[in-house]
């Protein structure tokens, strides 16, 4: 079975003597699959690790009776929410969920009194239970529970009272509670992604600003495709999106207000402005501006005002991403002759190069945890996504395809989304996700082709 079960049983042996005899049998049967921890770090061992995922049963959420709330049937929602939770856990790469299509349903009584034997019989280390019912105010009440089937203990108990239209968010909140409890990591599923939806022939692509949940749900197009749209970023409060539009045959950064559905220029200028990013507090916007062919990085209050220039080399200084405390900026410059990564203070002082590996480095993004910078590396064949520390150490490449580009961090700094472009006359772009091991690589579902993903924070 799984590595996590072996660890769990080891804990059991010291904590709960009464259960040791019964549990040892399953531990022995599990032993052959467990990877030796002192094995050399080869590709084979990495592959083994990826197979040792905690098995979690996720039966359809129960409902007292099939009720219709805002046109939605609670029994259908119970199944769909379990589907979302199972898909989230699977995509994280850490878990092997048994979703509602592969396990039996549960009754309301079982929600708080799970039949553990039924789930250990399915080799499930954990089981998720939940319910959906109508609230007295016309919304929904959702319960979310996680149990350890071996210890027979409750690990998570949460309830959400929501508007019916927010039922997906309840499933993401429940996924986050399960993921955080089992992994010890901060949550990330209840978050949104802004990206560019692509369609049409390669020589004349239609590119539209679009937004969706972190799993692709609740998809919505923002722009109609008449003007090229590029490189969107959600503001930290999700109320605005900064992006580049080719409206009126000019390249300019706009701030789109998701509430009023109006947009404003980030700065009034006759020059090309692009590559926008928010500061972590949402008060400032970094952008790049080309003046007479020379591109530098500027910062401007999000509410408007006079931009401050942060770089002044004759080369291309472009992009940029704030450290989570807002004190530093990692950016890209070809002042050395090729694209490389640099770190500077938020006021532009103390600019230092951090990338020294082979090839060129681009699109740096500082992790929300602060511990790593993600980047695109070019040169010598494939274009790949990787990470390094903010001082330039510990470089690791996480993907290896023809062209992987522009990583964006999950809110907890453990997963990256990026876009992958295929070669050739019919080359297309799609959104992908990979965790920091590089092993758990998944394509994200989008209605059309996709590029330029930008992952926002966990929703309040």
């Amino acid at each position, binding site marked *: 079975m799984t590595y996590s079960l072996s660890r769990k049983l080891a804990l059991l042996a010291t904590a709960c003597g009464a259960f040791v005899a019964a549990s040892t049998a399953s531990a022995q049967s599990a032993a052959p699959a467990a990877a030796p921890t002192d094995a050399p770090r080869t590709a084979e061992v990495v592959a083994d690790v990826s197979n040792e995922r905690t098995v979690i049963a996720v039966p359809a959420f129960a409902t007292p009776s099939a009720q219709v709330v805002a046109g939605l049937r609670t029994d259908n929602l119970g199944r769909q929410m379990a589907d979302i939770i199972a898909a989230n856990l699977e995509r994280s790469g850490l878990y092997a969920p048994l979703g509602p299509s592969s396990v039996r349903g549960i009754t309301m009584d079982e929600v708080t009194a799970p039949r553990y034997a039924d789930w250990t019989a399915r080799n499930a280390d954990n089981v998720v239970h939940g319910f959906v019912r109508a609230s007295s105010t016309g919304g929904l009440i959702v319960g979310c529970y996680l149990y350890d089937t071996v210890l027979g203990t409750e690990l998570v108990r949460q309830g959400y009272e929501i508007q019916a239209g927010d039922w997906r968010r309840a499933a993401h909140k429940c996924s986050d509670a399960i993921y955080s409890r089992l992994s010890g990591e901060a949550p990330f599923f209840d978050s949104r992604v802004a990206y560019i939806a692509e369609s049409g022939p390669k020589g004349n692509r239609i590119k539209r600003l679009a937004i969706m949940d972190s799993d692709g749900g609740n998809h919505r197009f923002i722009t109609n495709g008449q003007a090229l749209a590029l490189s969107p970023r959600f503001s930290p409060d999700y109320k605005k999106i900064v992006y580049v539009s080719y409206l009126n*045959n000019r390249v300019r950064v706009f701030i789109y207000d998701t509430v009023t559905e109006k947009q404003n220029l980030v700065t009034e200028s006759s020059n090309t402005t692009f590559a926008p990013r928010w500061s972590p507090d949402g008060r400032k916007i970094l952008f790049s501006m*080309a003046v007479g*062919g020379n591109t530098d990085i500027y910062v401007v209050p999000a509410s408007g005002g006079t931009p401050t220039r942060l770089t002044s080399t004759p080369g291309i200084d472009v992009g940029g991403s704030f450290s989570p405390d807002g004190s530093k900026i990692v950016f890209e410059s070809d002042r050395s002759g090729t694209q490389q990564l640099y770190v500077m203070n938020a006021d532009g002082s103390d600019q230092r190069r951090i990338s020294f590996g082979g090839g060129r480095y681009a699109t740096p993004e500082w992790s929300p945890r602060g511990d790593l910078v993600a980047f695109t590396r070019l040169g010598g064949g494939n274009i790949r996504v990787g990470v390094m520390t903010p001082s330039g150490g510990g470089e690791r490449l996480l993907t290896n395809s023809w062209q992987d580009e522009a990583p964006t961090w999950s809110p907890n700094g453990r997963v990256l989304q990026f876009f992958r472009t295929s070669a050739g006359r019919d080359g297309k772009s799609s959104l992908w996700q990979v965790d920091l091991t590089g092993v758990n690589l998944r394509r994200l579902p989008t209605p059309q082709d996709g590029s330029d993903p930008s992952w926002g924070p966990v929703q309040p």
Partner: protein
Amino acid sequence: MTMKKSTVALLAVAMLTVGACSKKAPADLPPPPAGTDTGSYDPNAGQNQVVPGSQADFVASVASDRIFFGFDQYNVDAEDQATLRSQAEWLQRNPAVRVILEGHADERGTRDYNIALGERRANAAKNFLVSLGISGSRIDVLSYGKERPAAIGSDENAYAQNRRAVTVVIAR
């Protein structure tokens, strides 16, 4: 290749014959601009009647509407200068015409850097036209980065055609 200053007509002929030995010009030149190329060409382009001062007139009159660049380069070499001289002469004959100088990059780069690179290329072409006496106020720069490839293959021949600065007449 060696190329002395000469008349535009001679240069145009010379370029046809020596183009193949250039170190960076594409092996086969892209077709004349079609509507799908940038979406900003004069709607009269390609029709039989050539309106003076139009994009069609421009393309028919100059050595080429575009110049090409090496990988990650933006220098205007002798061949490019000859092309731009022919463009400058046409612009001097059509003083009311304004143009957009589009800068483009190949697909094997990151999006934002390629926009910056397209800016460099378009400005290099603009600056050369200005040095020949064309007012900078008649030339708008528009970088497409890698967004609008002229050749859609993923090979060096296509990339060489896509690393370009294209002069486009603004339709009136």
